[in-house]
């Protein structure tokens, strides 16, 4: 096909993708080097927007905690997905059960979306009328009932569990597809050689699943560091709703929204763009690195 002919096919997608996805991300990077007065661009600011993130009140007190919350959020979600999710996927492959039925049930929460999941659980976990505390009472654990989302010590773990509850269907499906695609001969050979089920899993199946675990981890990483809706619905945009945990669930996605649209002050554009630039480099950088590492590993395996 001639270049000119190909251009007709490629141009619409190229222009739209460049204009609404690539260009905005690059401009955000550009914005971050200027001072802004409202929406008017002021003088060149060098790196002062970046240093300002760590020195201006209240951001300097929110940013690092938010980073750690997000990191814990990611690690916690990943631990649940790659252990429990993997276990469920293995059970669905090995046991004579209605696989499709369980997959459907486990995937439903994912489809509902972060905001709805957040609102739903904020009602379920409500201290006064919430069904969760009610269930605890019914089974005789009433003393454990507490304002789960209002207590700073339980708020983040609860948000992690809700997030894992929502997304668990994805690793289950992905691991399931990976398990179905594994060569049966290897596991069979191990069985003939007298390997126990656990040995077969840990020495044969698990190493073959590592690429899938890598993919799940990367996508979870991108998802967690972009999380916004879920925490917005569970704790409010300020993270300090009357029932909120006093900032204990502030994640980076929420801080970014807050700086850009709520309390950024006159230089909101400069400041939030600097934050966007840092987040972008961090998220995209790690995702690309991890992807590269997985591909390299795959290359050495086959």
């Amino acid at each position: 096909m001639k270049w000119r002919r190909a251009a007709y096919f490629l141009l619409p997608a190229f222009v739209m993708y460049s204009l609404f996805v690539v260009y905005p991300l690059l401009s955000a990077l550009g914005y971050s080097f200027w001072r802004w007065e409202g929406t008017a661009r002021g003088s060149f600011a060098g790196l002062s927007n970046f240093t300002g993130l760590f020195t201006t009140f209240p951001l300097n007190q929110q940013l690092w905690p938010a980073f750690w919350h997000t990191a814990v959020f990611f690690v916690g979600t990943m631990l649940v997905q790659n252990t429990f999710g993997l276990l469920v996927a293995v059970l669905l492959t090995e046991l004579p059960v209605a696989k499709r039925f369980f997959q459907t049930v486990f995937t439903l929460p994912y489809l509902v979306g972060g905001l709805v999941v957040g609102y739903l659980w904020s009602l379920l976990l409500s201290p006064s009328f919430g069904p969760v505390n009610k269930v605890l009472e019914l089974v005789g654990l009433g003393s454990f009932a507490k304002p789960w989302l209002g207590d700073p010590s339980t708020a983040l773990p609860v948000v992690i569990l809700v997030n894992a509850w929502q997304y668990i269907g994805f690793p289950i499906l992905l691991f399931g597809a990976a398990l179905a695609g594994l060569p049966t001969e290897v596991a069979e050979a191990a069985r003939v050689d007298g390997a126990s089920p656990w040995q077969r899993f840990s020495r044969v199946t698990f190493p073959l699943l590592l690429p899938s675990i890598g993919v799940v981890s990367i996508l979870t990483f991108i998802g967690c560091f972009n999380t916004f809706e879920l925490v917005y619905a569970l704790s409010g945009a300020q993270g300090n709703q009357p029932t909120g945990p006093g900032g204990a669930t502030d994640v980076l996605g929420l801080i970014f929204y807050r700086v850009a649209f709520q309390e950024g002050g006159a230089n909101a554009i400069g400041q939030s763009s600097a934050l966007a630039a840092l987040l972008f480099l961090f998220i995209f950088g790690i995702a690309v690195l991890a992807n590269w590492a997985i591909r390299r590993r795959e290359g050495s395996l086959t």
Partner: protein
Amino acid sequence: MTVLHEPVETVAKPPRPAARRRGRRRTPRERAMVILGVALLLGYAVVAIAPMIVMVIDSLRPNRAVLSDPLGLPTSLDFSSYTKAWTDASFATYMGNSALVTISAVALDVCVALPAAYVLGRYQFRGSGVLIAYFLSGLMLPIRLGILPIFYLLGNFGMIDSRVGLVLVYAASGIPFSVFIMSAFFRGLPRELEEAARIDGAGEFRTFARVMVPLVKPAIATVVVFRFVPLWNDFFFPLVLLRSTDKYTLPVGLTQFFGEFQTNWSALFAGLVITTAPIVILFLVATKQIVAGLTAGMGK
């Protein structure tokens, strides 16, 4: 690993190990493990589905009953919370907007990505490798971080508080995934197709529209279903880009609703059900495409 040729096929494979095991006799210990495993699956199924069942049941009970006992069963079906949400809180408008925006965005996304995926999937030319990498890098880009420039860009076009602006952003954000899935499909089609079409005298565009596109319908279905879900649920972009209530999509409308009806739990549950219902119906109709879309990333 190479890109999957036919994502749908890989997941449709039968679970071989399970089928094989059924034929073998189990020892008592194995039987105990099976029972334990099934119990675990059933137990988690309850955890996964119970919140949504509570949501539906409580939306059908009067608010007073919900507040006094959130786990009670309905004595009679009470649809007044739905009428309240649908008319008083203008969920009818939100639903219309969500449907309009999501369907237009997915349609635009497919129309734009399809020809690009065709060329990238079937032809190699100078720069084609770079172009593929350029499009696919979008799979990992945190698009929301560009929200301020997107905001001013749409402002320049006079598209702030406009559903058209939202559609453009949504369609563009779907292009990487659509190109990824559909180009893999195009790549898997046999070479002879174009030759046959050319011998029959069909031009490049005709070959594409009449021969190739009909053959990638499964890929189109995967893209449609799988892009529909995140766009329907998206809250961030309409929160920033829309201003007037009559243009709100369901998630932003829902936020407003939760602010206004704080104490009417029955109505809140009804609002959640209304927002969720179309997606659940879509899922039950198109489970296969959703599973395919979710597991397509494996071949990356």
